[in-house]
């Protein structure tokens, strides 16, 4: 990274950090190297650590793939008796595997927060509000924040008593973003017409508040949760949020609300986050929590893209 890029990245990082700081989120830093046994206590699904090494005692160390899990560990150990809610922010590198020959970076810079001990919907609304303030401060103009619910589709499958094997195949098509495959697997699951139609329609429902009015039955709980978040949002955040019932994130630990930042100047999300109400419990301090991470380098690309239009 050379001086021009570094200067611009620093400026963006500082603007984001000022917002997080002002909101009362104290900055923390943890080592890039963690014991694998600690990190593996979280369910990282699609974002498991990609790089491993051994120390002189034969312990397996990994390069962290996000900051949420290390901070969860810190909270459980160093803040074992502190009164929630607790607010932390970070500006740190994380490391993920890349697809070969694609010029992807193995190391990327994340700026984000973790809000520990604040349940839905208040905590979620607070995190979304700060997310939008941070993006506004960075100078991003045309972004939207997609809001979904990680538990929604699973609840639907539960309600329709889909067998374990079919369920796995259906979820596979959903995470691999293949609606043609989803249609095939839902048809093969032997459900009633109405149930099958709902399983196909729900993940493609996205847009304004009309999405939230759509349905009753098993989807209703998740929609009520999203409405409750929306009512608590400040106006600046509210006008940025779109609702997306098909939103799937590749981290396994999300339990409720999930969100992703989209900008028309970039083909991939600029960042995202969500609720992980069960993660802290795995480290010995069961507390509801929510957080987000912005990919600072992607944010930089999106800002540059917006400049051109």
């Amino acid at each position: 990274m050379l001086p021009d890029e570094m200067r611009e990245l620093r400026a963006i990082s500082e603007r984001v950090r000022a917002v997080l700081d002002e909101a009362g989120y104290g900055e923390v830093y943890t080592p890039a190297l963690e014991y694998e046994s600690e990190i593996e206590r979280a369910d990282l699904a699609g974002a498991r650590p990609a790089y491993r090494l051994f120390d002189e005692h034969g312990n397996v160390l990994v390069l962290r793939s996000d900051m949420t899990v290390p901070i969860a560990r810190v909270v459980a150990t160093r803040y074992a008796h502190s009164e929630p809610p607790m607010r932390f922010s970070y500006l740190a590198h994380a490391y993920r595997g890349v697809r070969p020959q694609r010029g992807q970076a193995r190391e990327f810079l994340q700026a984000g927060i973790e809000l520990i001990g604040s349940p839905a919907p208040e905590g979620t609304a607070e995190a979304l509000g700060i997310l939008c303030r941070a993006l506004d401060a960075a100078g991003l103009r045309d972004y939207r924040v997609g809001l979904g619910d990680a538990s929604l589709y699973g609840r639907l499958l539960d309600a329709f008593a889909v067998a374990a094997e079919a369920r796995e195949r259906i979820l596979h098509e959903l995470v691999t973003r293949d609606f043609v495959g989803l249609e095939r697997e839902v048809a093969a699951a032997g459900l009633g017409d109405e149930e099958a139609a709902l399983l196909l329609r729900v993940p493609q429902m996205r847009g304004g508040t009309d999405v939230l009015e759509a349905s009753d039955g098993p989807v209703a709980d998740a929609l009520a949760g999203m409405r409750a978040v929306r009512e608590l949002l400040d106006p600046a955040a509210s006008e940025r949020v779109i609702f997306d019932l098909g939103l799937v994130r590749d981290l396994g630990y999300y339990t409720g609300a999930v969100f992703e930042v989209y900008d028309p100047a970039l083909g991939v999300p600029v960042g995202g986050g969500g609720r992980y109400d069960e993660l802290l419990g795995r480290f010995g301090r069961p507390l509801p929590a929510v957080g987000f991470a912005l990919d600072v380098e992607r944010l930089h690309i999106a800002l540059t893209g917006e400049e051109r239009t």
Partner: protein
Amino acid sequence: MNGLTIAVPRGALFDGTLDALDRLGVDTSELRRNDRRLLFEEAGVIAMRPSDVPTYVEAGAADLGITGKDVLMEQRERHVYELLDLSYGRCRMVLATRAGDDQTAEALRRLGVVRVATKYPRIAARWFEETGRQAEIVEVNGSVELAPLTGLVEAIVDLTATGTTLEENGLVVREEIATCTARLIANPVAHKLKAAAIDDVKERLRAG
């Protein structure tokens, strides 16, 4: 086109794709007339090789794209939404060998490994992995049919529509790996930010 940009494949899927665009009300006369031009900004169409379509769509240089399922299977890791089976351009992905005794079986029995030529190394490798057989994948870019005739390999994995080319080269289909048709794909961010326009295109294409 609804304010969207669509990447379309030249080659075997081109005619079917132009018909589909006609049904969407896109003016395709210039596309039909001019086979050198690549960018048709007024129509929101970019023409390219089928295997490049996922690249443009994943990066967001095009909101939508049309390409074959064979391409999507070969580039499985692409972050794109597969929205619709357009059902034209139907082909089969097959394993073929020279007519007569199955040379794949003999190679596996006596040598423990079969050599396979293909333009689809990942589909071929995956197929042999799934069926628990050892294969040495030989990637070629031109006429795959040549490879078993010259003794380079025992078998090929390739796409066939009618089977004529295989037949003319004395090859027979031994196994069917997949049926491939044209698919409509979308960039994940465009799918969220231009939801109404994309759904409209999708529903009109589905209605046929």
